[in-house]
Every structure is written in C-alpha cells, then in structure tokens.
C-alpha cells in the first residue's frame, strides 16, 4: 500500500500528469480515427524513449493503451465500424442503440463501464502483481523456456483461422530475431555492418504496424463515406444505470483473466460477455435492436482485459496483444527487461506505472464524457492527410533511431512485408512477438543447457515446464484435429473470424 501511495506521488508530478493527459487524449483520438490504433501509435511514439524519463514515457503509453480501447467504442457505436477488434461486439448493440436515437446512452454506458472495469482491473493488477513476482523469480531457465514456447504457440494457434499463415508469420518473426551477432559471429547480416547489432525492433514494429497498414489502406483508398449518427452529450437515466451495473461487473470478471492469458486478448471475453448478458437479460427481445446490456458488458470486458494484459507483461515479460508487444519494445529500448527480476529491481517505476493507470482511467472518464461530439469530428479528416501523416511519422520514428538512411531502407522493406502479409491474410501479431521473444527463447535454452552441461533432460526437470509442455501437447493435438477434419466440414467453418480483424486495430 505504501508502495502504491509512493507510486501516486510519482505519477502525480506535473510532468508525469502532463504525459498522462497527452497519452489519454492521443489514445482516444487514435482509437476514434480510422486505420490507426494504439499499437501503431505507441510504435510511432517510440522515439520519445530516446530522451524522456522511462516513467513519463510509460505513463503516456499506458494512457494511449487505455484511451485506444475507449475511442474504439465511439466509432463502433456511431458508425458501426469497430475501430478495434475488441469493439466488434460493442458495435452489435451499440450501433442499433444509436440508430434508435439512444447514442448518448450507449456512449455513456460504454464510457462509465470502461472506467469501472479499468479501475477494478487495475486493482486486481496491483493486488496480483506483487504476489506473482516472487513466484516467477524462482523459475529456472528450463521453465522460462517452456513458458516462452507456450506463449509463442498460443499466440499463433489460438488466434486466427489459418494456422499455416499464423506459423508462417511466427517463423518469419523468429528468423528476423536471429539477425545480429551470436558468439562473435554474424548471423543473417548479409555482410552489412549496420545489422551486426540486430535489426532495430522499433523499426520492425513501426514498419509492420504503421507503414504496412498505411500502404494497405492506400491500395483501397476511395469509397463512399459512412453515415454517422449525430450525437449529443452522453447521459444515462436511472433505468439505464440499473440495467448497466450488472453487465459491467460480469464483463470485468470475464475480461481480466482472459487478458492475462497468453493469446487471450479481448475478442473472447467480449463475446462471452455478450452471450451471457443476452441469456440473463430481462429484455431478451431488445437484443439485436439495441439493448444497453449488450454494450455495457462487452465494453467492460474489453477494458478489463487491457488491464489483465499488463500482468503477464510486467511479471513475465510476455506480451499477449499487439499494443503490449510494442510497449515491451519501449521497455527494452530503456534497457529494462520486464520479467522475473523486473518488479523487485524497479519498484518505483512499476508502482508509478500502476498508479498512473488509475489516473489515466479517471482522466478518460472526465475528458471523454463531455468531448464525445468533438471526437466524432476527427472522422472528417481526409485520408490523404491521415495516411501521409502516418508515413511521415513512421519515417521520423525509424530515422530518429540512429539518424541513418539505412534504417529507412529497413523500414521500407518491412513495410512492404507488412503490406504483403495483409494482402495474403497473414496475421502480423505472431511476427512481432516472434521478433521480440525469439532471442530470449534462444538465450534461455542456452542458459539451461549451459547449467546442465548439454543434458537435454534438464528441459523437463521443473514442474512448471512439464505443465507447459502438457498444455503445448494439448494445443498441438487440438490443432491437428482441426486441420485433419473432413474437408467438407472445414469448408463450412471457413468463415473469416478473428484473424482478419486482428490487424484492423493497429
């Protein structure tokens, strides 16, 4: 508790508060804006890490993360275009409510639900993180290797409908992670001295998320504008409050644990929350025509999962969503390595970050409730400026890493890869996670084998490792069963699912 209070005193300094406000505003704006999401924004802002204090930068990124979740709900309600994959479910009832003239109530229940879920999620994070920290420190290299393996596999297999494409993405990422120097020898450097230290993860993240997405949109530029529903000040009646609080709490209960799981994300809990509310509702006939429960529950689930995501990221250094992956890159560019020793080694930073999450959440509610009509105006920015701006800031971000034109060339190459991946339906998340976790996978294996002097048996010498391998075996078996199913059934199930949505929120 003392630590948390100290965290607050850190986070409430004028500078850090300013960064929190910037983060929250930017996050909401990009959540609303088409084609830009929190992961892309954090990637574009990575240059600030070269000179801003770690606490301030991370506070801003946390604000962007929470704000993006928030802004996404605005577009899904007013336009029926979910800005984030996690807002797909919100759009179902939210847009119906807006069409029925209840846009204000839909926005209000989304905003207040997000606040409540985000706050409870952060409380859980604050309560659980210190408990998990000491447990994690005891894990040896074999366990850690197994956990990394599980995380990589889970991200690849659980999300997306085409496993083949998921693995293609993962192994491309792992291979990119190899570039650099190992035991004093160059690996995959093409004889380029500038690659000896590896490819800048910042550049890869900006290329895949920002440049690849901008090029992909550029190839599909012109189309009819969407019909936006005009909105006034968000507000709710007493009856709306009564119908909302249950879904908010249940949504939070779904969201947090799923966010904390590797490959959990927000899609599953928002869907579960929606189904639950439809079952429990006293007004089941309203579902499909704008039921407020169908907005309140999924929105809460979505924000609680964002808080949940931070648990494995801080405790294990495992990113489970695109945004978390890019925030991890930010940690690394400070030379900080989230994971077993991180929490105990940097208590001030961690607690300031946790405290700032509470602040970000409150700011979101205070700022966003009155500003909803203003945010909707952002949607009128012409695409040429929006995407020229993304290209501009992507180049700036890559160039600022070393002020070398070489990094810009790398940016372009990976941007084109990102474009091709979108064209061929290859999910981008496994690639970026492969780039980040690949080197760690190798170093943990090397460490484990060095301790055991080359005896492979050490890999399953720890209970945690064995559990991980069992889950991996189950996942693999499940995948194989899915792949070898009779072709006729597979064709029926070939409807596009979360995979295609995954990048929509970058």
């Amino acid at each position, binding site marked *: 508790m003392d630590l948390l209070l100290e965290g607050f005193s850190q986070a409430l300094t004028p500078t850090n508060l300013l960064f929190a406000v910037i983060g929250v505003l930017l996050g909401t704006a990009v959540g609303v804006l088409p084609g830009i999401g929190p992961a892309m924004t954090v990637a574009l802002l990575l240059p600030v890490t070269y000179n801003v204090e770690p606490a301030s930068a991370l506070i801003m990124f946390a604000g962007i993360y929470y704000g993006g979740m928030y802004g996404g709900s605005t577009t899904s309600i007013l336009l029926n275009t979910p800005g984030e994959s996690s807002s797909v479910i919100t759009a179902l009832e939210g847009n119906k409510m807006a069409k029925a003239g209840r846009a204000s109530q839909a926005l209000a229940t989304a905003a207040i639900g997000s606040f409540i879920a985000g706050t409870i999620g952060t409380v859980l994070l604050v309560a659980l993180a210190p408990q998990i920290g000491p447990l994690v420190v005891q894990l040896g290299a074999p366990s850690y290797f197994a956990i990394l393996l599980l995380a990589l596999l889970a991200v690849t297999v659980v999300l997306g409908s085409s496993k083949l494409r998921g693995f293609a993405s993962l192994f491309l990422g792992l291979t990119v992670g190899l570039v650099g120097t190992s035991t004093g020898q160059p*690996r995959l450097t093409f004889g380029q001295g500038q690659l000896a230290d590896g490819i800048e993860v910042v550049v890869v993240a900006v290329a895949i998320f920002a440049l690849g997405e901008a090029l992909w949109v550029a*190839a599909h530029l012109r189309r009819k504008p969407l019909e936006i529903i005009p909105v006034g000040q968000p507000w709710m009646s007493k009856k709306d409050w009564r119908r909302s609080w249950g879904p908010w709490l249940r949504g939070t209960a779904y969201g947090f644990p799923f966010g904390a799981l590797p490959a959990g994300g927000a899609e599953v809990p928002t869907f579960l929350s929606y189904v639950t509310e439809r079952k429990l509702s006293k007004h089941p006939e309203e579902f499909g025509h704008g039921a407020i429960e169908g907005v309140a529950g999924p929105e809460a689930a979505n924000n609680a999962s964002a808080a949940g995501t931070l648990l494995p990221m801080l405790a294990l250094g495992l990113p489970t969503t695109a945004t978390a992956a890019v925030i991890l890159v930010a940690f690394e560019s400070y030379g900080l390595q989230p994971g077993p020793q991180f929490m105990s080694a940097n208590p001030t930073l961690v607690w300031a970050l946790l405290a700032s999450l509470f602040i970000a959440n409150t700011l979101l509610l205070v700022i966003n409730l009155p500003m909803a009509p203003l945010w909707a105006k952002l949607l009128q920015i012409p695409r*040429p400026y929006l995407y020229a701006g993304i290209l501009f800031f992507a180049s*700036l971000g890559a160039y600022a890493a070393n002020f070398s034109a070489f990094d810009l060339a790398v940016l372009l190459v990976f941007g084109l890869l990102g474009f*091709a991946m979108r064209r061929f339906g290859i999910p981008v998340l496994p690639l970026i996670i492969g780039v980040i976790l690949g080197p760690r996978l190798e170093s943990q294996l090397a460490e484990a084998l060095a301790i055991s002097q080359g005896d492979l048996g050490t890999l399953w010498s720890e209970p945690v490792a064995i559990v991980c391998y069992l889950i991996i075996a189950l996942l693999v078996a499940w995948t194989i069963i899915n792949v070898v199913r009779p072709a006729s059934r597979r064709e029926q199930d070939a409807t596009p699912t979360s995979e295609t949505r995954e990048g929509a929120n970058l």
Partner: protein
Amino acid sequence: MTTTTPPARAGTSTTRKVVDTAQYGFAGFLALVGAYTVYDASGIEPGFADQALHPATFPYVFGVVLIGLGIALAVATARGDVAEAEEGEDIDLTTGTDLRTVGLLVLVFVVNIALIDWLGWAITGAFLFAASARVLGSRHPVRDVAIGVALSVGTFYGFYVGLGIPMPAGILDGIL
C-alpha cells in the same frame, strides 16, 4: 477438393475453384528466406568450446521450418486456398487493390531515403508528406506543402528543443 469457395470476401464470388496465383509468390518468398537462413547457418562455427547450444541450431530449425511452410502454402494454394485479405475499419475490399498508388508511395519513400543525408529531414520530411498526400489523392498542392513544411520543421525543432536531440540538418546546416 470441393466446389465451394470460402464466402466471398474480395469479390471472388465464383463457384469454380479459384487459384490465387500471387500467393505462390509469397510461398516462394517463405521458402527463399528459409533457404537463405539454412545457407547462412552452414557457415557458422561452433563458437566457444563450452557453448552447449550451437549458434547455428536455431537458424537451422527456423530455416527448415520456413521452407516447409513455403511448400505447404504452395500446396494449399494449388488446392484452391484463397487468402482472406485483411479487413479494416478504413478498408473496403470490394474495390480491388490499387497497386499503382502503392508503387508511387514506395517511389516517394525511395527518394526520401536517397536524399535525406544530403538535404536533411527538414526538407525531405516536407517532401515526403506533400508527395504522399498528392499520391493519396489530395488536390491542394499549396496546402499540402504548407502542412508538410510545418510538420517537418516542427518535428526538427521538437526534437531539438523538446527532446534535446539535434537531428542532422543536411544542406540547411547553419540555417535551422
């Protein structure tokens, strides 16, 4: 296989088998990356004597898997597997892919890379913005350049004043 294709996404709603020939290209790319990784790994020495993990082990594994994935994707393509191109909030897949715009943007990018060391970010950044906006369909050259200059000079000073990082000024050295 069967005569049904996955639900029409990119306007390919035909009942006959569709082969996405461009996808062979991506399959080839995967196999090529894999092959080069294996080739590169073959030149790596064992490293230090007490190193239990050979530095070429991971490259070998990843390279071989990538070759396998490339082949698998090629086979799937031949059997009528069609990519579900990524949808997005701001993407309408029914209009087809406009490669000309993408090509022009890449050209703008290459020009930026070629000139940035000589002219400096303040100039090439403005060019990058204005030219990209033009390629993307803006019809207001004056406004494009004005915004571009404001952004590039603004970020130049933002880095200098805000972050304390002097960016190379290029040809404008001494003026900015």
